[in-house]
């Protein structure tokens, strides 16, 4: 839905982050403080973390890759759920449901919507990318249907007890494992291709002015749909999923020497 309060639909005029940067730039120039100018451009030697008013807007590619990071962490959770299903163990339904709902809301409605609205149309007419874009669109659709299936099954009995008794619950566990595996197998290369081919192609094919406008739009839409500090709150939800699945400690992924 696109008509929430405080949205970019609001008739009142918004001061964009780029406008704030522009204004801050004027302050810097007026005061002749070159160190602050360095903070604006991300250069200089001060570290630049003490001026909270000066925040660079992520480029469209950076924003989309950050969202891919969220998806990667959910893929890890999906793989852990699949392993539990294969082992006949309990699957924490809350973790799976929240992970799948994040995929539906943040990845499939929002992130993929950005790609379908602002990225793919800019590349589809280029014969070098037309077939790839079509494949990515088909995969978005397949992912949405897999997610619908995962959400439907995840609401049922995923206990280890269900794995022992022939019947609908055991069949559901088997079907769920297949859906999770298919989702992970499809999205790992999917996001890798987007990161290494599609986003660089967008950058090459788009003027700096439009890239800046896209960056603003992506940030606006994220705030409109998920509120302020959207990424932090989304990552917090992902962390909650990881906590339930025993994946919260990054150290556990480090191999022993």
């Amino acid at each position: 839905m696109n008509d929430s309060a405080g949205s970019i639909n609001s008739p009142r005029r918004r001061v964009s982050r780029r406008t704030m940067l522009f204004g801050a730039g004027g302050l810097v120039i007026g005061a002749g403080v070159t160190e602050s100018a360095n903070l604006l451009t991300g250069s200089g030697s001060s570290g630049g973390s003490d001026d909270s008013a000066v925040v660079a807007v992520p480029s469209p590619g950076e924003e989309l890759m950050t969202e891919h990071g969220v998806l990667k962490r959910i893929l890890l959770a999906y793989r852990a759920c699949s392993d539990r299903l294969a082992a006949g163990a309990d699957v924490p339904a809350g973790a799976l449901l929240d992970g799948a709902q994040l995929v539906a809301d943040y990845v499939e409605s929002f992130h993929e919507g950005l790609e379908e609205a602002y990225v793919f149309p800019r590349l589809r007419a280029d014969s070098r990318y037309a077939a790839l874009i079509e494949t990515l669109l088909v995969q978005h659709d397949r992912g949405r249907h897999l997610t619908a299936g995962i959400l439907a099954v995840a609401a049922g009995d995923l206990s280890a007890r269900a794995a022992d008794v022939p019947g609908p619950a055991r069949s559901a566990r088997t079907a769920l494992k297949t859906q999770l595996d298919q989702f992970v197998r499809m999205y790992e290369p999917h996001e890798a291709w987007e990161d290494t081919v599609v986003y660089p192609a967008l950058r090459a094919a788009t003027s700096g002015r439009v890239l800046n406008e896209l960056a603003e739009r992506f940030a606006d839409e994220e705030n409109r749909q998920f509120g302020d500090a959207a990424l932090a709150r989304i990552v917090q939800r992902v962390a909650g999923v990881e906590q339930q699945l025993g994946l919260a400690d990054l150290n556990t992924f480090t191999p022993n020497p």
Partner: protein
Amino acid sequence: MSGAVPALAVAVVAAVVAALVAVLVALLAACGSPKAAGPNGTNGPAGDALLQLPAPTQVVVQTRIVPGLGTVLTDSTGHTLYMFSPDARSRVSCTGSCAGTWPPLAVAKGSTPTAGSGVEASQLGTLADPNSGADITTYARYPLYRYAGDVSAGTANGQHLFLNGGPWYAMSPDGTPVVAAE
């Protein structure tokens, strides 16, 4: 001491001037911004330039049988047309990124969509489309959209997807959502 006072005064004046310049620059930037939000979060009556949506002068709504669904409305290329439940009461609630996944069946301002075989002309209409800046074709007062996941004609992959805050259904020729199958 006597030399320090003028220096301090100059610094204060410089700071005040800098602040005024900053405020002025910010105001000018806001006034001249091409991204000033208009109705529905777009660039005003001209539509959302970042979306690059075409609005042809000729739009024909047709019907087609889709396996598993029966007869549904399609555009002139045979792509299934969908309605979005939150659009009830003749509104266009799918804007921005949503309009990428569900591109509106836009038609140029002043043009009238045409009914193909099996389509009731009296059900066709238009609404202002904040995405294209033109109009969006409506049927039974619901705006019509395609689905980005229908990469080929004759499919209805968007049927009964819950996306962008609501369920999506193919539109039947009688002006009701197709809900019989997925």
